[in-house]
C-alpha cells in the first residue's frame, strides 16, 4: 500500500509542488523582499562572526585617540591596487584646547584583508587573530591602527563597536521574539481552539494589555532592575520585559487562524479519530499555518530591536560595558557634542537599515504565505 503511493507520487513528480516550494515561488517575485532578506542575512552573519569582522578590540580604550574622525580607506595607490589609510595626527588647539585630528597622507598605513589583529576566541573556542580587514602585516609592529568609522570619547573604534553591538541587538530581537512566540502562540491557540469562557478571558486580557502605555511600563520595569546585576542578567531581564507586552499581535493572528481552521474537515476528522487536543493543535493545525507564523514573527522582530535600542539609549536598558546599538547611541544624547562629532550618529544607520529590511522581508513573507492573495 505504502509502496504503491510512493510510486504514484514519483510518476507525477513534475506536477507536484510542496507548500514550501509554492511559498518560495511567490516570495521570489518580491524583489524588494528578496533583497531585504539578503541584507538581513548579512547582518546576522556579521553578528555571528563579530570578532572576525571587527577591526579593533571594541573595549580597548586609549585617551590619545579620543574622538578621532573616520578614516577613509583609499583603494588605489596611484594605479596600483594597494589599499591604505592616511595616518591621523592629533593636534591640540592652543586657545580652546580642543583636540582635532588631521589626515597626514605622507604616512600611509597599508590595509589588507584577512590581516592579523587583536586576539580573540571565536565562539569561545577557536583562538585566532585573523580579521576581515586590518593593518597590513608589514606595519603590524608599529602600533598603527585603522578606524574606519572613527573612535568614541574613550578612543574605542566605532566600527568594531557597531559590529559587536549588532550581535547584542539582533540576538535580543531573536530571543525576545522566541519568547513572544511562545506566549502568543500558546495563548492564541488555547483561545481559538477552546473558545467560550477561556477565549473571552484571553481576548479581554489582550485588550487590556494593548490599552496599557507600554513604554512607561518598560521604563519602570527596566528602571527597577537591581543596579548590581551583570550584563547577562540585564540582557535577559530586558528581553523578558519587552516580550511581556509584545505578544498580543501574535496571539490575535494565531487565534484568528485557529477559529477558521477549527471548522475544517481535517480537524473534525482528527477529533473523531479520538486524537488528544494537544495532537490536533500541534500536529494538525499549527503546521498548516507555519508560513503565516514565520511572517508574523519576522514582523515582530523590528519592534523588539527598536525597544531595546530605545531603552538602552535612555540609559535604562543595557549599560556599558555591554555593547548594543542603543548603548552606542547614548553618546548622541548631547546634541551639542554630536554637532562636532557627527560620526557618533552612525550607529543609527544599521538600526534603520535592519528595521526596514526586516519589515520588507516580513511583508513579502506574509504576501507569499497567503495562498488566497491576489496575484496582482
Amino acid at each position, binding site marked *: 500500500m505504502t509502496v504503491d503511493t510512493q510510486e504514484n507520487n514519483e510518476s507525477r513528480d513534475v506536477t507536484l509542488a510542496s507548500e514550501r516550494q509554492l511559498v518560495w515561488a511567490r516570495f521570489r517575485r518580491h524583489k524588494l523582499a528578496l533583497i531585504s532578506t539578503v541584507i538581513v542575512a548579512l547582518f546576522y552573519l556579521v553578528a555571528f562572526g563579530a570578532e572576525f569582522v571587527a577591526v579593533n578590540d571594541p573595549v580597548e580604550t586609549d585617551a590619545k585617540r579620543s574622538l578621532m574622525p573616520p578614516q577613509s580607506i583609499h583603494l588605489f595607490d596611484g594605479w596600483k591596487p594597494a589599499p591604505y589609510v592616511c595616518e591621523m595626527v592629533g593636534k591640540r588647539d592652543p586657545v580652546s584646547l580642543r583636540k582635532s585630528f588631521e589626515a597626514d597622507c605622507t604616512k600611509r598605513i597599508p590595509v589588507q584583508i584577512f590581516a592579523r589583529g587583536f586576539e580573540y576566541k571565536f565562539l569561545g573556542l577557536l583562538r585566532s587573530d585573523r580579521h576581515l580587514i586590518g593593518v597590513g602585516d608589514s606595519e603590524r609592529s608599529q602600533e598603527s591602527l585603522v578606524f574606519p568609522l572613527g573612535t568614541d570619547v574613550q578612543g574605542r573604534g566605532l566600527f568594531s563597536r557597531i559590529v559587536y553591538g549588532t550581535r547584542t541587538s539582533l540576538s535580543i530581537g531573536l530571543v525576545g521574539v522566541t519568547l513572544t512566540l511562545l506566549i502568543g502562540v500558546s495563548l492564541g491557540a488555547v483561545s481559538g481552539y477552546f473558545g467560550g469562557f477561556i477565549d473571552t478571558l484571553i481576548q479581554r486580557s489582550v485588550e487590556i494589555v494593548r490599552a496599557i*502605555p507600554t*513604554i512607561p511600563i518598560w521604563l519602570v520595569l527596566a528602571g527597577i532592575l537591581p543596579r548590581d546585576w551583570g550584563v547577562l542578567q540585564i540582557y535577559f531581564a530586558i528581553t523578558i520585559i519587552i516580550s511581556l507586552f509584545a505578544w498580543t499581535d501574535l496571539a490575535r493572528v494565531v487565534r484568528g487562524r485557529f477559529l477558521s481552521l477549527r471548522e475544517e474537515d481535517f480537524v473534525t476528522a482528527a477529533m473523531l479519530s479520538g486524537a488528544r487536543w494537544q495532537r490536533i493543535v500541534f500536529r494538525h493545525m499549527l503546521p498548516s499555518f507555519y508560513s503565516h507564523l514565520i511572517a508574523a514573527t519576522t514582523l515582530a522582530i523590528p519592534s523588539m530591536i527598536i525597544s531595546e535600542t530605545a531603552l538602552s539609549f535612555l540609559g535604562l536598558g543595557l549599560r556599558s560595558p555591554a555593547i548594543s546599538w542603543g548603548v552606542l547611541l547614548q553618546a548622541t544624547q548631547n546634541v551639542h557634542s554630536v554637532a562636532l562629532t557627527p560620526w557618533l550618529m552612525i550607529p543609527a544607520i544599521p538600526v534603520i537599515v535592519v528595521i526596514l529590511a526586516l519589515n520588507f522581508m516580513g511583508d513579502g513573507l506574509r504576501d507569499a504565505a497567503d495562498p488566497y492573495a491576489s496575484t496582482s
Partner: protein
Amino acid sequence: MWVFLAKRIGIGLITIWALSLFSFILIQLPKGDYVTSEMIALQMEGENVTDEELENLRIYFGLDKPVHMQYLSWIGNMMRGNLGYSYAQRTPVNDILGQRLLLTVLYAAATVVFIWVVAIPIGILSAVKQYSFADYSFTTLGFIGVAVPDFLLALLFLWLGFVFFGVSMGGLFSPEFVDAPWNLARIWDLTKHLFIPIIVLGTSGTASLIRIVRANLLDELHKPYVVAARARGLREWRLILKYPVRLALNPAVSLTAYIFPFLISGSVIVSVVLSLPTIGPTLLQSLLEQDLQLAGAIIFLAGVMTVVGTLISDILLGLLDPRIRQA
C-alpha cells in the same frame, strides 16, 4: 451603542485597576517608608526622634494599617486628585506634574489631529492616483516613516536643526514664556514649538494611516455603486469624497483608538530627547533617581490618560459606524 460603550468602559476600568495595582506595588518596593526617610532627614538636621514619635507619625500617615487598607486609601487619594508625595524631591507630586500632564494630553491630542489632517488627504490621493509618482513617493516615505524609531527621528531633527540653523529645538516654550501665565502670546509660542515634536511623534502613525486609507479606498473605488454614480455624470471628486471615502474612513477612526496608547507612550521617549516639559522626562528622571513614588503616580496617570483617550475615539467610532453600535 450602550452595550458597546458599557463594554468599552468596563475594559477601561479593569485596565486602570490593573495599572493602579502595578503602581502601588511599585511604590511599596523601596525599603522603608515615608516615616523612615523623614527620620533620616531629621537626624541629619541633628534632631533626635524617639520611637514613640515615629510610631505616632506612622499612625498619622496610616502606615500602620494592613497593605490592602493602604492600597484603598492610596487609590482614594488618587481619585480625589492627591497624587502622593515625592520623597526624593520632597515636594507633592501634584506640584511636580501639574502643567506637565496638561501638556502631555495636549501633545498627544494635537498629534492625533496632525495624523488625520495629513494622512487622510494623502491616502485618498494615493488611492485615486494609484501608481502615480505621488503615490510611489508617499508609499516610500510611509515605509521609512514606519521603520525609523521615534527617538532617532527626534535626534535627527535636533541634530539637523543645530547644524544647519544653529538653534536648539528642544522645549515647548521660548525662554520668556516658560513661567508666563497662559495668554494668547504664550499659546502661539507653544504652537510654534509643538510643530517639530508633532511631526516626530506623528510620522509612524501617519504612515500607517496612509496605508490603511489607501488600501480601503482602493477596495471601494471599483465597486459597482461608484461606476453607477459615475455613469450618472456625478463630478469625479464630489463622487469620490461623498461615497467611497466615507466608507474608507471608518478603519481610520478605529485606528485612532488603537494608536492612542502608542502616542502617550511614544511621547515619553520623544519628550526626553527633545526635552519637552511633559511627563516623559520626569518619569525618566524619577526612575534614574529611584524615586518610585513619583514613577508610580506617573504610570497610573499615563494609564488613565490612555484609557480616556481610547474611550473617546471609541465613542467617535460608535457615532460614525452603526455596525459597531449594533455589535
